[in-house]
């Protein structure tokens, strides 16, 4: 579930759901709604995304920035998230052998279509997803976060 929030100079989303996978999926839907609101989209093409980050917040920023990159540079808009897997790679022995810290890994399968300015009304150009007060929390079996977009 996501909710659009409005700051004086910027916009953002509040997202909550019962698992990390659902949280990341809903955040993508919230990003999409911020950008094109209710413009219709179709599942023409699938894309796989694999991301690695030192923490969940960084993974979230990378994930939404990836979708933003597809839109602003490749002119490709998300339709929906088909698969989402979020894992903590913390096998202590293996990491010690590799001299690495634990990291979060996100595997995503999404679909979408080429941007069509006649069909998709871009309401807001997001410069970037920010780390401003970004925190992914678990409260009462629910994951929650608040993401601010720089526009």
């Amino acid at each position, binding site marked *: 579930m996501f909710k659009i929030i409005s700051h004086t*100079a910027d*916009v953002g989303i509040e997202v909550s759901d019962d698992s990390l996978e659902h949280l990341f999926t809903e955040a993508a839907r919230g990003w999409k709604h911020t950008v094109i609101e209710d413009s219709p989209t179709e599942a023409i093409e699938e894309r796989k995304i694999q991301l690695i980050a030192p923490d969940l917040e960084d993974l979230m920023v990378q994930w939404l920035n990836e979708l933003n990159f597809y839109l*602003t*540079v490749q002119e490709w808009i998300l339709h929906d998230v088909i698969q989402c897997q979020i894992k903590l790679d913390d096998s202590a022995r293996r990491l010690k052998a590799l001299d690495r810290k634990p990291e979060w890994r996100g595997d995503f399968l999404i679909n979408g279509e080429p941007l069509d300015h006649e069909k998709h009304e*871009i309401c807001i150009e997001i*410069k970037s997803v920010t*780390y*401003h007060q*970004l925190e992914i929390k678990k409260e009462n079996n629910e994951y929650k976060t608040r993401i601010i977009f*720089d526009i």
Partner: protein
Amino acid sequence: MVTLTYQNVNINQIEEFVWEVPRHGNMSVPGRIYASRKMMESIIGEEESIKQVINVAMLPGIQKYSLAMPDIHWGYGFPIGGVAATDLEEGVISPGGVGYDINCGVRLARTNLKQKEVTNRMQEIVKSLFAHVPTGVGSSGALKKLNKDEIRNVLKIGANWAVKNGFGVSVDLDHTEEKGCLKNANPDSVSNRAIERGQNQVGTLGSGNHFLEVQVVDEIYDEKAASAFGLFPTQVVIMIHCGSRGLGHQVCDDYLRVLSNATSKYQIHLPDRQLACAPIQSTEGSDYLGAMSAAANFAWANRQVIMELAKRSLLKSLSISERELGFSLVYDVCHNIAKIEEHRTNGTTKKVCVHRKGATRAFPAGHPLTPDSYRHIGQPVLVPGDMGRYSFVAVGCQKAMEDTFGSTCHGAGRQQSRRKALKAGKGRDLIAEMEKLGVVVHARGMRTVAEEMPEAYKDVSMVVEAMHKSGISKKVAKLRPIGVIKG
């Protein structure tokens, strides 16, 4: 002198327009905010912006004060309107002190035209400008798509690239901050993704609060300075406000991640992740400085191309000669940047890294980096307002060198969220309302017009006045918009 309180901290008025947040907690230096009492009360009400002034005061190597201009409002890491200088040896550089839109800035071009010569032709002038200058979300296509090597060249030489390719003349460079090129730019520090984002965006305005306006000189406060800048009453001028587009946003994004890791590597303790930073002398710090400078060069090339497109548009729509148009650049300033500059701190002159995030350089008369033609007057400062009221030209003063690392304000700042502005614009003929105010507006969509209506912004004159009265930058002229193109 008055004392106000913010979260149990006394904020002391030390001059009519200067307020000090005393050093406390982990602050290395005090905070100083430029504002009238009324403005200060409203800033305190905003809460987060003062907290951000305090946070910036904790950056390693910060010199003298964590400063904020009267247009302060909350940003990411630094507040918008924040200025901080850090020591080159012991200090850090932070993308949070520059912002996502690296070298977002303003340029002002003069013409020989008077308002009466264009009044009846504003519709076709604005329509033509809109056709010549790509605007809006993901706008592209001013030039053919540049290949990656060409973009690297833009990143290396900045506005020079535009001039070499027929966009403007070399004298424009003399009237551009840093002559439109930061020499420490390092295109090799810029990611492939950032370069991809820039390939199609040289000469594009973008969206949001970026604009190109036809304005008239409405009032002159300082005749000597106005005359030196080539300005006279009722004159038609062109103001352009934009930055480094997607390329700059990507550089900021890339380096927030790099510097976030560096922050823990160098054991720097920060109260906010958006303040991620690294020692200026470290590999990470110097890579960011090189990439950020390259993005700044991209922005100067962008504004230089846009200005030339605007000139061509005016020549065409008015069917006049170059001599009759008399088009030339008054000045180009950036207001989101970190630069190595010489300043006096603790009785000695030394090089420091000045972060200006939503703040404009304001060097005084006699400063060696002020262009020859303005050396006796001082550097022009350009402060854009909203699209219905006015923008200002000011000039830097000596007090800026003494008190604010040669910096002053940069603009109005929003007072209404975009959503609230959209709601307020529902059911209204906003284009007709703007026309009643004497402004012809052309935008890609009505949404931007609603979001950017004058009522959504604070009154920029209060901001300019505070800096004028504090002696940091003096008012030279007021400019009134008569034509606007927006994304």
